């Protein structure tokens, strides 16, 4: 279907100033909805660790204090959820993926793909190229405050140029892998890559 039919009686709410930042099919929200596949895990910072792996071997691991001692980055970005809300200008602080690589002595990703593993068994897959050059971070603060558990605290992946399910909550492990494999939502009907500007919401989009 090339041109969608006009819905009889549906009135435009086009706002020129904002649509430039709004991917197709998205609408603006000012609150911060919570969406997850299951219960919110309760994670104590004292028990928290994060690991970077190349296949089965360990590249690096950090306790909370060690992770907090890595270089910190703050960014303001628009985020886009596949359930169609977009939130503009959200402010996050954490460790840039580039800095994480540098801290284990790497200047570039050792493999082409990454699987993010989270508490609760959630996973999501990404091309390594989408995590480098300032495109991604592991966020520990939102709007200047520690990240709330419902929003993925203590630490979540943040890859704002892709639909927000790729910004995995409750991150515990990033694993480089040579071949792409689908993660949790990617095996349950959602798009493998998830570019909001190409509206890659579901399988086959």
């Amino acid at each position, binding site marked *: *279907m090339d041109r*969608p*039919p*006009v*819905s*009889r*009686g*549906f*009135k*435009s*709410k*086009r706002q020129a100033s904002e649509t430039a930042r709004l991917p*197709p*099919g*998205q*609408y603006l*929200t000012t*609150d*911060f*909805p*919570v*969406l*997850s*596949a*299951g*219960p*919110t*895990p309760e994670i104590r910072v004292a028990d928290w660790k994060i690991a970077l792996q190349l296949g089965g071997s360990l590249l690096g691991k950090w306790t909370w204090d060690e992770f907090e001692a890595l270089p910190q980055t703050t960014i303001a970005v628009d985020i886009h959820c596949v*359930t*169609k809300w977009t939130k503009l200008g959200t402010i996050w602080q954490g460790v840039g993926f580039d800095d994480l690589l540098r801290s284990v002595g790497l200047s570039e990703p050792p493999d*082409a*793909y990454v699987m993010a593993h989270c508490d*609760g*068994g959630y996973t999501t897959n990404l*091309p*390594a*190229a989408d995590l480098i050059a300032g495109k991604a971070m592991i966020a520990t603060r939102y709007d200047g405050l520690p990240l*709330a558990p*419902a*929003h993925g605290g203590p630490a979540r992946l943040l890859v704002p140029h892709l639909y927000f399910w790729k910004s995995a909550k409750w991150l515990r492990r990033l694993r480089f892998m040579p071949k*792409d494999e689908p993660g*949790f*939502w990617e*095996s*349950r*009907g959602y798009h*493998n*890559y998830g*570019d909001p500007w190409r509206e890659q*919401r*579901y*399988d*086959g*989009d």
Partner: protein
Amino acid sequence: MTATDTPLQYPRIEWQIGCVQAIMAETSRVKSIILRPAKWSGHWPGQHVDIRLTADDGYQAERSYSIASPPEEQLLTLTVERVEDGEVSSYLLDELRVGDALEFRGPIGRHFIWRQSLGGPICLVAGGTGITPLMAMLRHRKKSRAYTPASLIYSARSLAEIVYRDELDTMARDDIDLRLVYALTREYPGDWNGHRGRINEALLAENSFSREQNPTFFICGPAGFVEGISSMLVKFGFDSFAIKTERFGPSGA
């Protein structure tokens, strides 16, 4: 490296035009829209569709709606609640008429789904219009004559706000394997024998099967509601993987 497109396992879910066959008022804030798809290869209870509205200047709005009808039915039922300032819900509730064309695509999602082949028991917990995908599961359970032990704990503000109440009451009356419990949070009739107030641990424990029975949970409702129920279940010792959730609305945080 352009690793953006891996081989597709599934075909694209194409937009299509459905014809509005009927519109039914469910409560003062909720209507069901009955749609005849142009083509439909079936769905799983719990799946949703996306609806897309287009204005004459090309402006579009999209929203997701859960399917309330079971896969055994040819027509699709979507149940829509009014959202404050909701441009799509207000269009669907106030403007849409029988005979109109409605653009949609689906079915979507393979996480929050159940069908009788997956077995049970199943414990469904609904907050408000979170009942919709759970209703598709219950209707399918009935149509497929699956005697899977099931319970539905349904929290609503008042008796008048319970969607599908007559159908649920009839369903439960005829079925000893289905337990139906309402929790009324704001208003209840003077002679109300059911639960008053929000779903609490006691009500949930009493109606959620035992750990030995290994139930699967489907919880749908506002974010805070789902958060509360799922934390109670984790506290009871149920496996997180057996607790499937679907949250909607603002976080309230």
